């Protein structure tokens, strides 16, 4: 039997899953609940401050490294979930799931480079 090429997608899937489990909750907390609870001063998220921070190439790279693997993780997870739910049109499911992830990747790139 031939060695599978699945590691190519699975590596991104695993990385995205780890980011979604550990990094995403922290980001969501600091942008929402953290402010409401008073742990993070609202001024810290002021537009001028946030945009200045996000304009640094390092911040753009970090944002890309967080968003894109999570997109591909979601795409792969939904593809497998469709299979588990009995949708066996894998070609079409792949096209839709990975297609949206690819569009999301381009949109992320465009948005980050345009900052």
């Amino acid at each position: 039997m031939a060695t599978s090429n699945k590691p190519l997608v699975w590596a991104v899937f695993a990385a995205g899953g780890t980011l979604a489990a550990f990094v995403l909750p922290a980001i969501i907390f600091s942008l929402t609940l953290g402010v409401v609870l008073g742990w993070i001063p609202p001024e810290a998220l002021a537009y001028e401050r946030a945009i200045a921070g996000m304009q640094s190439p390092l911040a753009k790279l970090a944002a890309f490294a967080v968003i894109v693997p999570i997109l591909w993780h979601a795409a792969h997870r939904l593809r497998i979930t469709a299979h588990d739910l009995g949708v066996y049109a894998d070609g079409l499911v792949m096209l839709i799931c990975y297609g949206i992830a690819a569009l999301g990747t381009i949109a992320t790139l465009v948005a980050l480079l345009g900052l």
Partner: protein
Amino acid sequence: MRETIHQLEVLRYDPETDTAPHFQTYAVTCQEDWVVLDAINYVKENLDRTLSYRWSCHMAVCGSCGMVVNGEPVLSCHAFVRDYPEKIRVEPLANFPIERDLVVAIDDFVEKLTSVKPYIISAEERPVESGENLQSPEQLAVFKQYADCINCLLCYSACPQYALNDSFIGPAALALAHRYNLDSRDEGRSARADVVASNPGIWECSFVGACSEVCPKDVDPAAAIQQTKIASTVDYFMRFLMPWRKQ
């Protein structure tokens, strides 16, 4: 001791005379400490000698009495009757062809288990004079859990991927491959990778985790498969990054 009457609905099928499997119900008076296997043995001894099923140890060690009881794959010697309602439906393990009544043909599993080389492979022949192949308790602890598999096949009965695609190597065989890959005395990981790291190997698994839920020995095949996915992914990229590295 308290006694309860249970209606035992047993799937019957004799391929020589029956066109399709059907259920036969037996009323069995069960003792409070009976397991489902006791009730089936009662049927065999007192009500219907034609009923066929496999069992041996009656203590969750041999792995031969796996059946689907009220929809869930269990060892029938490990499932107390008192934990079930009055009606108990007993079926053979799912995803295997029925040989007769509750007996299934497991040839497919045996073939797959053999294909992952579930034994210690040494790069060089070890002569008897070289003595024991020593292993520390720490080295044993690394794989001990995966060595507890009793090949009862409850995991194959529970696995939705195996149900869809019977070319999938499946939970128990992959967990045992992992057990040998983790063994400090073993050098056969690359020899197993041909089957293990293929599409019908670990990559057919979508991590539903039903195998680990039904496993009576807490082997956790789902974890074994995920760990193998990580190791195989590292192998995959290392082949490009460090092609000179021996697999």
